[in-house]
């Protein structure tokens, strides 16, 4: 029990990431409001970003810019942060595109609720 607790405390960013991921996934799958689905997607992606960045972190590590005075100081791994910048760009484009689609759906159906849209479609056919 003690070891488990220690592990949990040391690896807390990963647990936070898992919890965030589950919150996001549940929001996507259970909410019928399109905006809430989109927010769920964003929470889920943030969880993955958090996991990556936590993996690159070293406690007490320096910024990964060369320090002339102390060139051998431990520095955090910049690769995951750089990768996650790309991930953030991707998630921004997904969000923007999804918002545009929501606007179009709202214009044609007058609602942003996935269940209402499905009902209206069934009434038409």
């Amino acid at each position, binding site marked *: 029990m003690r070891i488990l607790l220690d592990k949990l405390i040391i690896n807390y960013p990963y647990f936070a990431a898992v919890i965030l991921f589950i919150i996001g996934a549940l929001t996507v799958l259970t909410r019928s409001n399109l905006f809430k689905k989109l927010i769920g997607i964003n929470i889920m992606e943030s969880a*993955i970003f958090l996991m*990556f960045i936590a993996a690159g972190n070293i406690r007490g590590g320096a910024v990964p810019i060369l320090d002339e005075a102390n060139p051998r100081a431990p520095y955090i791994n910049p690769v995951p942060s750089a990768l996650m910048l790309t991930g953030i760009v*991707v998630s921004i484009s*997904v969000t923007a*595109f*999804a918002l545009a689609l*929501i606007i*179009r759906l709202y214009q044609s159906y007058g609602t942003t609720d996935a269940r209402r849209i499905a009902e209206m479609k069934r009434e038409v056919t």
Partner: protein
Amino acid sequence: MTATIKANLPVFVVIAPLFVAFVLPTFARRIRLVESLVIAVGVLGLLGTGYLASLILIEKGIPIIYSMGGWSAPWGIELRVDSLGAFFLLVVAGVSLPVALFGVDNLTHEVGGSAQTTRFYVLYLLLSGALAGMAVTSDLFNVFVLVEVATLSCCGLVSARNHPRAAEAAFNYLILATLGSALILGGIGFLYIITGHLNMGLASQELGRVWRDYPHVVWMAASFLLVGFGVKAALFPLHVWLPDAHSTAPSPASAILSGLGVKGYMICFTKVLYNVFGTTLMREFAMHRILVLLGMIAIIAGSILALAQDELKRRLAFSTVAQVGYVFLGLGFANASGLTGTLFHMASHAVIKSGLFLAVGAIITTTGKHRISEMAGIGKKMPITMAVFTIGSLGLAGIPLFSGFIGKWYLLSGSLEAGGSLAAVVIIAGSVLCAAYLFPMIRIAYFEPAPVEDWQDPGVPQRIALVLLAAGVVILGVLPGPFLELAKGAALELLGSM
């Protein structure tokens, strides 16, 4: 000059479509110019990939490695044209050119207006570039980026028609696909955390050393990647987005989405599975059993769902779900014949399904009818279109002398080698079901009295595109020579890198 171009071909085949895509919006008013640019990129791509493939064939499969910016792995990003890459590049170039040709003159009418058509071509070229990138990349993070580029362009293509149903299908696809990419990114993250490498070869070496220390992390990575790519490639229980998306898109878009879009994710999954995990780890974690099981379920369920559809495009979309099953089945066999069969089936399905979707698109634009039961006598009115549809159906059902047969034959021998007689039965049952859901259309089209309306085959560019794809089906079936050679080489490469 030619030497420079040849040396840089691996990067040109990827960036040429991407950069042309970004320049296209500035020519939006001159639709002729846009169309000819897209066709030119397609022709150049076909020439370039043909040259790369011939190099690989002559050199007996020695991969061409290209380091971006001169930084070799592990520091830089590496492009790697091996047999698998050359094979898939050839498929992408060979299918995307006829599909682009089909759009000439026709697309404006289907998506409305020249601005929309230009937007369509931008997304189309982005998708082609991303697929070409997937073929040659050997970097895990690049896999994620390319998958995202492809997904976003696919969603854009689905929503290209200004119709509320298209927007809804695109939104559902976008949400599920983003769920999938989050899972893929998570899986790649787990691999990076335990190996410290993003290059596939180096990650694989490191994984072989450390997997015993982190069995749970390897499990998590594998399951995240399987579910993530499963959503994207429409593996059976995760296929829910596909029928709506593929049936509401404009016909050239459905053709490229069903024919190539889904295949790109499968190529990435194949690379991650065999080039990173390797066969040893797959057996250790029983991944191959899971893949075989999922593949069998997908074949049967997809075929039965296809039988239940009356709308022609939806039937074809569900047929894609069934054919995806074959690919996952072959990946699970993990032997040379199974993998050769899988890769060849991927190529032949790409050609056949784009041909079928284009033929159906031509029928729908001419007649305005969507249901199979309403298509009586079309064969007499539109002989070329219906002939292409017939050749495609025969190919998909796996009749000898058509391309589907060879892939299924290798899959069958792979299943017997792997000792799965149930899988062999499922493969044959899938073919029978495939005939059951495609042949009624042929019967109705040829043997029922035609209505009096004046329907005709589509215009010249459309006819050329259709005939090119049908010719592809027959050539792959009668003279598979170099393609089969490449597929075999790719299978051996994938198995060799354990």
